[in-house]
């Protein structure tokens, strides 16, 4: 993949140069350090709504699994609707074909029994804890990834902004004092330069708006290049044609998001981290098993991950993607062929820099006495252990800063060695 593309000089990049009147104080804060040898990239994908980990990573060999799940259970590998084989105990949901290939290529690490420190069952508090990195919900207005960016070693901090959210508004995980960009597709025409300059001038006395406008103008010109890349999306060929029509809008949105994220991350002076959201994992009703609602949604996610690898090209070997959710779902199916809010769920580390091809599990088992509160998969791994270890090994953030600023109450979540390939660490 050719990374040496030159930005077409467009209205916004010109404008960015001419914005001195409104934003001189801001741009002066960025200095360009010498390039590091390997600019590492980290992508955090939030699965909002509480992913059913036991369906994404079915523990088909657990003696209690089929009984608890009934018609939602996914069979052992081999049959037509069986799980995709991993290690002989766990499988992957049949919708996750790219992730299965990545497992074979040792680029996927599967974490089947993970949770945050949160032990209640509110989506909104659960997401707050997942994103803030603090044990108590609503303890802070900043996110762990933003606090991490503040502590990036200066050599890796070469971009204007060190993080980008693929969303109109920045999610909590990236909020804080480190500069971050946000980007989402626009259908409206660009403004006349002169009008934009006047708006920038008017915002000079309003710190929030001045900062946001400067970010938007900088991001806009970068996104213009990202979108100039060829379209590699070709849909989920496995589904029925009618179903393809239903999923097309979601798939199209994810693909555009992923391609834009890749456009930012590929740049030598691009951000070190990108964040985007996926939704719709709250499967209380008609969840389905080897076929059905959740499988279809996982296939859409899987396809967008394939696109991410393809569009990242030669940056993929230096990339780590973390996929995590706020909590899991009940071990047993509920009364409406779905699952209710639970505790432990699955998480994934994906990317060329991951020491993959493994399932990392201290599996607690699904017998009644092993379930959390007799109803949920008991988590045996704090997701902050994974976050800390990746930030430390991959983005070279000092453990002192991680323990003090990023995850201040995480002493119970130790670092895990060896999540990444040796030459990465």
């Amino acid at each position: 993949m050719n990374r040496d593309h030159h930005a077409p000089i467009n209205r916004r990049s010109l404008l960015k140069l001419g914005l001195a009147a409104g934003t001189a104080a801001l741009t002066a804060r960025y200095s360009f350090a010498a390039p590091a040898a390997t600019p590492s990239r980290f992508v955090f994908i939030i699965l909002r709504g509480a992913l059913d980990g036991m369906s994404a990573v079915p523990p088909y060999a657990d003696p209690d699994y089929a009984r608890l799940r009934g018609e939602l259970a996914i069979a052992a590998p081999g049959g037509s609707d069986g799980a995709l084989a991993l290690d002989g105990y766990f499988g992957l949901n049949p919708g996750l074909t790219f992730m299965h290939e990545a497992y074979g290529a040792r680029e996927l690490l599967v974490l089947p029994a993970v949770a945050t420190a949160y032990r209640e069952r509110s989506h909104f508090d659960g997401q707050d804890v997942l994103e803030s990195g603090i044990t108590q919900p609503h303890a802070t207005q900043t996110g762990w990834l933003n606090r991490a960016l503040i502590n990036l070693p200066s050599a890796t901090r070469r971009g204007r902004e060190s993080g980008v959210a693929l969303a109109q508004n920045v999610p909590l995980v990236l909020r804080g004092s480190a500069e971050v960009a946000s980007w989402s597709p626009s259908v409206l025409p660009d403004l006349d330069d002169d009008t934009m300059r006047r708006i920038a001038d008017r915002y000079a006395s309003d710190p929030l708006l001045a900062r946001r406008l400067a970010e938007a103008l900088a991001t806009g010109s970068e996104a213009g290049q990202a979108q100039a890349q060829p379209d590699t999306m070709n849909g989920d060929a496995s589904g029925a044609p009618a179903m393809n029509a239903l999923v097309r809008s979601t798939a199209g949105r994810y693909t555009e998001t992923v391609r834009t994220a890749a456009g930012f991350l590929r740049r030598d002076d691009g951000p070190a981290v990108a964040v985007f959201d996926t939704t719709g994992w709250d499967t209380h009703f008609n969840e389905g098993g080897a076929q059905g609602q959740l499988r279809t949604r996982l296939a859409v996610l899987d396809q967008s991950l394939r696109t991410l690898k393809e569009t990242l090209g030669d940056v993929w070997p230096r990339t780590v993607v973390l996929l995590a959710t706020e909590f899991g779902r009940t071990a047993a199916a509920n009364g409406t062929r779905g699952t209710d809010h639970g505790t432990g769920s699955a998480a994934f580390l994906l990317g060329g820099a991951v020491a993959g091809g493994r399932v990392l599990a201290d599996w607690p088992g699904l017998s009644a006495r092993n379930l959390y509160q007799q109803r949920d998969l008991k988590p045996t791994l704090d997701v902050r252990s994974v976050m800390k270890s990746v930030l430390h090994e991959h983005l070279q953030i000092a453990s002192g800063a991680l323990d003090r600023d990023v995850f201040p109450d995480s002493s119970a979540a130790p670092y895990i060695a060896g999540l990444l390939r040796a030459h990465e660490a």
Partner: protein
Amino acid sequence: MSLDYSSAVAANRFGLGAKPGELELIGTDGRGWLEAQLRGPAAAVAAAGLRSSADILSDAATIRQQLQAQRRAAGAKPAGAPNDGNATAAAAPASADALAFVMRLPQLFRPIYIAEVQARLRNAVATERPWVERLVYFWSNHFAVSVDKLAVLGIAGSLEREAIRPHVLGNFRELLLAVEQHPAMLLYLDNQRSVGPNSVLAQRAARRERTLGLNENLAREILELHTLGVDGGYTQADVTSFAKVLTGWSLGGGYGAGPIQAGIGGQFLFRPALHEPGAQTVFGRRYHHADQAQGRAVLNDLAQARPTARHIATKLARHFIADDPPPAAVARIAQAFERSGGDLPQVYRALLESSEAWQTPLAKYKTPQDYLLSIYRGLQLPVADGPKSIAGFDVLGQRQFAPGSPAGWPDRSDDWDGASALMKRIEFADAVAQRLGGTRAVAELGPQLLGATYSDETRVSLQRAASDGQALTLLLTAPEFLRR
């Protein structure tokens, strides 16, 4: 020049953004203008042709029957349980019949959704009681459903019209009861098929080796979002017991487990065969009531519980005073809620009487909906027919009735002030200004829409503008127009 913010705060923070002439009408008594709006009937939406949820769902049921008949005629096996259109955009339904239904449903629902949003927008542009209208939106968001779940695309608007508007100036207890019995809420939070484990239906199913059981979704969100709040002190045991209490709260016709013939299609129906028998304990109280009375009794108590008063007061104060509302104001509003037994006009008056609400103009960053409505009202823009007229909500990032979760849209500056979102507002404002060209006297509009909050800086930037169109863009993107 003496700065009296009263009219600007009343029209822009409590209302939906000033119409030309509104600030003059208000004069110096913003509070009095708002107070007067609380008298009289709750404002209905003035639009002919909007249909009831029961009518709409009955059409949906007819379509389902026709599709089944067609498929049977073509030799296909009849399907088992209907799917209710209970699928999101990327969902796979359980059967071919259900898939055909889910594919057909948008044709019925989408025009209804567009008509609902248009009627709501026209009403917002025209209304003389914008504070009552904003309160309707507040409650609609408090009791949020989201049309990314196809099942509610056609009836999200009717939830607001049928359950919220009639009670916006009434009692919280009645409001709560109306919402939790509305088909949109029951379908959105999956209660129509939730079955008590020891109910008649579950036992019958067990004899045929089928399992039917609880779905906790509605019970949990009532406790967490609609009443006590997430810190209200309830436990998982309360959620499970309350879910049992609510078994049987379902819909008639083909909606809900049980006989398809029962009830009127798409209307609230208590189905005794689904109901878990026996007493339940919820939030420290034991409920021995039979059938539907049990759920009504629990809701009645939840509506009057102290954590509920505090939860509602906090949300009102956040919406009308500041992202981090002053504790004294929250306490005052909560006290009015408790003392009056949830009489909403008394709660609203306690808010109006909180001096904090008047002291800091422009403390709230507008949501995309606020922003769009204030442009439409300020410029008295026409709302054409057709889907394009409501596309602005999508472009700005707040597709109507689509918050994506039962928690509704968030209500803090952080949630809305992103860089990309700001650029969308600027581009949207400019597109509006380009279209209108020089047809508005922009120099007069500034003081008419912003009153005492209209800054000298913005005034000067408008005077220096190269054209009326550019001046209008500068007005609609001014810092004081982005806030309320």
